[in-house]
């Protein structure tokens, strides 16, 4: 595989990873609502992409342990829902908070590295960085102990912002991949 093909493959995996991470399609299984696009698949894809890109971006291998940790956490949650109908991790508040910290860092650093990768090829990545910032702030905001149920309007606005953010992120990643790998199938 040439370098460009490898880059294309890695970016495609990252795009699919974010699709799996943000898109939830829930089906009723054993009376529970189970996500058929499980988040742990995202981390398998990210792990594979990191392996492909680690020679190109110096900081990317630092994310490998976090990728494994988040994949395990998501897998445990998914299995919990499948077997008992409850997400196991939410029961342990402090562990859950640590997982959120890791996921904020992971996504932030992953997008930072992708932006750096794109910029090396003289392609503007400012929009990707802006989406990265918005994503991190939104993730942190949701963890703040605010009365979200009472602040319905704000909750809806944040949820909408989250959806817009996801669409932008996937769109920008696709654009970045196409520009980086012009002429590669």
């Amino acid at each position, binding site marked *: 595989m040439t370098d460009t093909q490898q880059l294309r493959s890695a970016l495609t995996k990252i795009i699919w990873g974010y699709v799996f991470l943000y898109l939830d399609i829930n089906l009723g299984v054993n009376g529970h609502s189970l996500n058929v696009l499980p988040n742990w698949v995202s981390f398998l894809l990210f792990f594979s992409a990191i392996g492909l890109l680690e020679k190109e971006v110096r900081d990317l291998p630092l994310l490998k342990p976090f990728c494994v940790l988040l994949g395990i956490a998501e897998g445990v949650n998914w299995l919990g829902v499948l077997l008992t109908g409850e997400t196991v991790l939410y029961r342990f508040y402090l562990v859950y908070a640590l997982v959120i910290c890791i996921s904020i860092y992971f996504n932030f650093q992953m997008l930072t590295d992708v932006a750096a990768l794109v910029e090396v090829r003289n392609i503007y990545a400012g929009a990707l960085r802006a989406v990265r910032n918005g994503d*991190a702030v939104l993730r*942190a905001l949701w963890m703040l102990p605010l009365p979200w149920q009472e602040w319905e309007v704000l909750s809806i606005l944040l949820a909408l912002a989250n959806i817009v953010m996801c669409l932008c992120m996937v769109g920008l990643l696709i654009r970045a991949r196409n520009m980086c790998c012009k002429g590669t199938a």
Partner: protein
Amino acid sequence: MENIWAFLEQTLAASLTAAVLLIAKRLFLDKLSPRWQYGVWAILALRILLPAGLLGRALIPGLDVALEAAKTGAESSLSSVLTDPYGLTEVLAPIPLVRMVRPVSVTDWLFCLYIAGVAVCLLWFFLSYLMLRRQVARGRTPDREVLERLEEVAGQYDLKLPRRVVVLPGVESAFVCGPFSPVLVLPQRAVDDKVLLHELLHLKYGDLWAGVGMCLLRCLHWCNPLLWYCWNQAQNDSEALCDQRVLERLEGEERRAYGVILLSMADDRYARAPGTTSMANGGRNIKRRIRAIARFKRYPQGVALGSWCVAAVLAAACLVGTSGAAELPEQWAADSMSLARARMNRATTVAGALDTYAKAVMEDSPIYMMMAAPASEQGKLLRAARERDGLEGTYPLEPLGIEKDEGVQAEWVVYNLLEGADGNYTGLLVLDAYTTWFAHSYEELQSVAVSQPVRIVREGDFWAVEPLEDWTAVDPECTLVGRPNTVLPALTYTAQVEDIWVELSYQFLLSVDNRAQVDDTSFFGEYSAYRLDTVPRPAALFTNYYRSAGGRAWEGEEEISLNAWYAPLTKEEAKAGTLPDEFGHSSIRTPAEYGRSGGGVGDASGSDWQQAPTALAVKLEYKGQEYTCIAWPKEVAP
């Protein structure tokens, strides 16, 4: 912190935060910069300064229940003066609050020991600082060229000079001492410019003050080794951050030389003193700092916002925690955790207190009663719950001829609930067995309900019910006690305008909708039915109210007939003397008897009225003239 249990709660919360921060720091060791590594210790400092359990939130749900259970287990056989075995442990302040009482129990003495430890620790830090200052005072002024070099370094990096610079024989490495008037202490041997830069940077960024703060926090939790370990780490992180700041100002070979200087200090002794910073802080710490320097260029760049977000989530998790409402106990549970849960679920609303009380007496459950009883009753109820005894006193439905073991349920409603001058409430609690029992076996002239006058008293954040008399059967004439009637009493509101005297009888019923929908399947298919929820709701609000009015009027000595419109007023409206612009359709023609007609409103999220009106705005129409006035309750009694 007023007792040893409050200290335990506080130090446990701090320890959990410390553990979370240590894990987070380990996870992000090679990923986030020394600024972040040092900055997150502010979360631990804030955690120690914020009372644990603030706003009813906890770091680990259930931990507070375990602590309460342990406290009651230990304290119920002691007679501590500092701890109420049945009250809730509350951290009022993050510092020990000294009460001038003679300690009696072992836990009292332990708390005294803790306070003494804080005092000794403070004294020890203070004395060691004083001794150091005395030694520093004996130091000599350095040579002119040393001072010139120091000025040069300060000028080159735009840093302030310390008030004094001294050379102290016997000192192994340079350090800064004294947050108020900082003194730079130098060893006798020549000191490198980079070491001077390091110490001047400590001064610039106020690290001396941070050190003083850490010493004070050490004193507050002197007996917690985990926190001492954390503050040691924090001081090392402070040095590592200072190294980072030095490296940011140096170039190329100078950076390598700085690392060599640090290495040369690895064998130096490290004597920690409050209000000082020292570049040489022990061999093991120096090794860690050298590893941090090796990572200097490898920290991922451009992650400032990300690291702030991570810190914000950590802070939110460790400082605010999660809503830690304790689960309700089982009706007949007797284990110490369930008993603790009962005490932690004491009623927080008037409606909640009445609901819990009514269900406790119906279920004959001491553990439920603990949630609605005054503090003075808690010990007795705890013993009854432990021994699985029932409640003292007669079963409420006994006056109706119903035995406890028949398992009859009853709905409750409170009549004429009114706030007294002391802020407590009185009302007539009525248990209605008609809908659940007599509907099937009702015979004429048989009572269907019982009543009991009650007082609902405020105890801190909680409400407790005190029965004022025994349960008595309601007059058999009344078969529907859940609606206004002429049998049960009403409040009397009186007013006088010129020589017209009005007396309004106002019956006001409040209740909580306790029906719970149950889905079931029978031979004919699925169906839904309602049953009464027998689990207490200690934070309930009144969801339904009914009202009915009657009244009489006199002109002088002579009773007269007139039209009276009335509108209920809240406490604030009554105090302000606010009369409504429109009186609406609520009216009577005197003389009229209450309970004949009336209206009601239900709102599942809590009705507008949570007590009987403080007063009634009244409009009278007599002989073609209109008068308006405010009628006040004649008496505050059921």
